[in-house]
């Protein structure tokens, strides 16, 4: 019983990271119908910036959040300009390949500057919140859940209650018509893309704090797996992406309990492939928005 609840807690914590990244995928997919392959690298950059802040400036969690958010936003902004805006009109494949190149470049550049080895990270919120029947929950795990909720609520507010949000929704429905209606499509896409980068960077910061470490390749697997999670929950719907993230985290952790850690990555890939075949719109997604 203890085991069951502990695995649930583990799954929810890890799922929180996936959910944040899945939101990032879902935002971009919503407006462009494309995927940013370097989301995992932005996750790593978020972790890196918080690590730098804590190591060289001040050990402050909130400053780290701010800086990570900024770094993610700016990097994604630049990335969108290069990989999508500059070559708009080229094939979709060209953009995808370009983001892969970017991802590779970012990872390797960081590896070259800070080394490929894992670095230690300052600890925040590592006190125990409570222990119940042998199930231990740390403050950090609670912070992670709260962060996901805050970001989800903020994004929902942003998308449904502001003018830019309206523009984003319009562009995601029909890009051409939105342009004809006088919406600045390029700017809208750019904003959505940058926000997705910021989300990924926040996820990276959370990952770094939770695992107390940072390394140049840490974004690779979360990047791929959270895409699986987004597909699982519904790439076209933000609550779907979050649900997918949490479910994926929980499934993985129970998967480890039943099979073994060696097959952990296989589990998430198989879930993704099965869903792509059987229900490509995901659990909560709507069918017409996913073009297959």
């Amino acid at each position: 019983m203890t085991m069951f609840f502990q695995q649930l807690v583990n799954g929810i914590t890890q799922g929180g990271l996936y959910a944040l990244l899945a939101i990032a995928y879902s935002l971009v997919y919503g407006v462009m119908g494309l995927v940013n392959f370097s989301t995992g690298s932005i996750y790593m950059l978020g972790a890196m910036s918080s690590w730098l802040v804590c190591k060289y400036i001040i050990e402050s969690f909130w400053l780290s959040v701010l800086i990570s958010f900024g770094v993610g936003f700016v990097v994604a902004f630049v990335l969108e300009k290069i990989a999508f805006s500059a070559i708009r009109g080229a094939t979709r494949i060209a953009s995808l390949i370009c983001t892969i190149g970017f991802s590779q470049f970012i990872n390797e550049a960081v590896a070259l500057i800070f080394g490929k080895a894992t670095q230690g990270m300052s600890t925040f919120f590592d006190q125990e919140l409570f222990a119940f029947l042998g199930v231990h929950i740390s403050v950090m795990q609670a912070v992670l859940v709260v962060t996901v909720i805050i970001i989800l609520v903020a994004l929902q507010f942003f998308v449904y209650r502001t003018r830019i949000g309206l523009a984003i929704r319009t562009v995601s429905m029909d890009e051409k018509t939105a342009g004809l209606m006088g919406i600045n499509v390029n700017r809208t896409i750019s904003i959505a893309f940058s926000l997705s980068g910021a989300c990924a960077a926040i996820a990276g910061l959370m990952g770094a704090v939770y695992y107390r470490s940072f390394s140049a390749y840490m974004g690779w697997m979360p990047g791929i797996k959270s895409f699986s999670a987004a597909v699982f929950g519904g790439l076209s719907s933000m609550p779907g992406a979050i649900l997918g993230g949490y479910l994926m985290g929980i499934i993985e952790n129970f998967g480890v309990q039943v099979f073994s850690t060696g097959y952990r990555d296989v589990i998430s890939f198989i879930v993704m492939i099965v869903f792509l075949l059987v229900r490509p719109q995901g659990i909560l997604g709507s069918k017409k928005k996913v073009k297959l």
Partner: protein
Amino acid sequence: MKKVFMFLMVVVLLFSIAACGEKTSSGSKDKIRIALTAPLTGNQAKYGESFKNTVSLACKQWNDKGGVLGRELELVINDSAGDSAQAASVAQKVVSDSSIFAQVGDFSAPCSMAAQPIYDAAKMIQIAPTCSAVTFARGSKWSFQIVGNQVLQGRFMAQWMFDEGVRKVAMLYLNNDWGVSVKDYVGDIFKELGGEVVLQEPYSDGETDFSAALTKARDANPDALFIASYYNDGAAICIQRANLGWEIPVYNPGTVYSPEFLEIGGSAVEGVLTNVGFFPDDPGPAAATFVEEYKNLYKSDPDYYGACAYDAFNVLVEAIKRAGELDNEKVREEIAATDYEGVTGNITFDENGDALKTYIKIIVKDGKFTAYR
């Protein structure tokens, strides 16, 4: 036309650059040339650097004493980048250079083993300092390794755990050639001793989240946790174990012995039990001078892997000295007959070419590695 023209240009250019590089590498005939292959770039660059430092030091020490057989020693350093395809091409390069007599390296087992068939075919001696894979040394009569294979180390660790009263052990291991053989040998010997292995859980390279595996291990209710991990995963496992509030002795076969382990792990790694063959804080007489000279030269502590490479080079040169001539058959015989007091302990080889080693027990105490008593 222009495409083919360009293709031609590229091919000619590349191979002519290669040809230039090739020419410069043949050195003077009167020196004894020994190759060192190590991952100087790539993921394992840290260890490669250490190999390079210690072997250069050993080479310098021999030359200060006047070389061997009246000839100076020269080191030819090659980078394998920790990639087995690259290691094989480096091996080709080494065997095709007739002025190179023998080879020290590589660091990792996949690299050493990818290079092995090439050295074997060329009848060149290959001493891999840290290749502890059981299949390595017995794969060729020209291959030796210094670190000791996992049968011996496994027996040491299993015996230690058993002596401490551990009867049920859970094992987490890195799923690569090294981790798997550590798990096999420690596990088998522990069972032979009468203990029980309640869980053997592999994890992939690059895994960061161990909480699920640890929860599973805790559920199996063992007396001790054995982790076959390098320092980064080892530290992550210890941290997440602490987060779970799980108090249990943690054993490791020597691979977490590195300052980074203490730095990343912080208070969570307190009490971790591991072993080393060589311990800078408590060195034997041979090791004391090595540590001192290394510190003078490189301003840092040598690590265990580097010390193995240092011994590998010395074993080789000692054997050349005893053989009295540069004949690979004779030198091979002499290496096989080695009985050398190295910095990593006394070194003799079994019939396969695996070194027989002794180990020192250490524990993390107050944020430092200290001898275990």
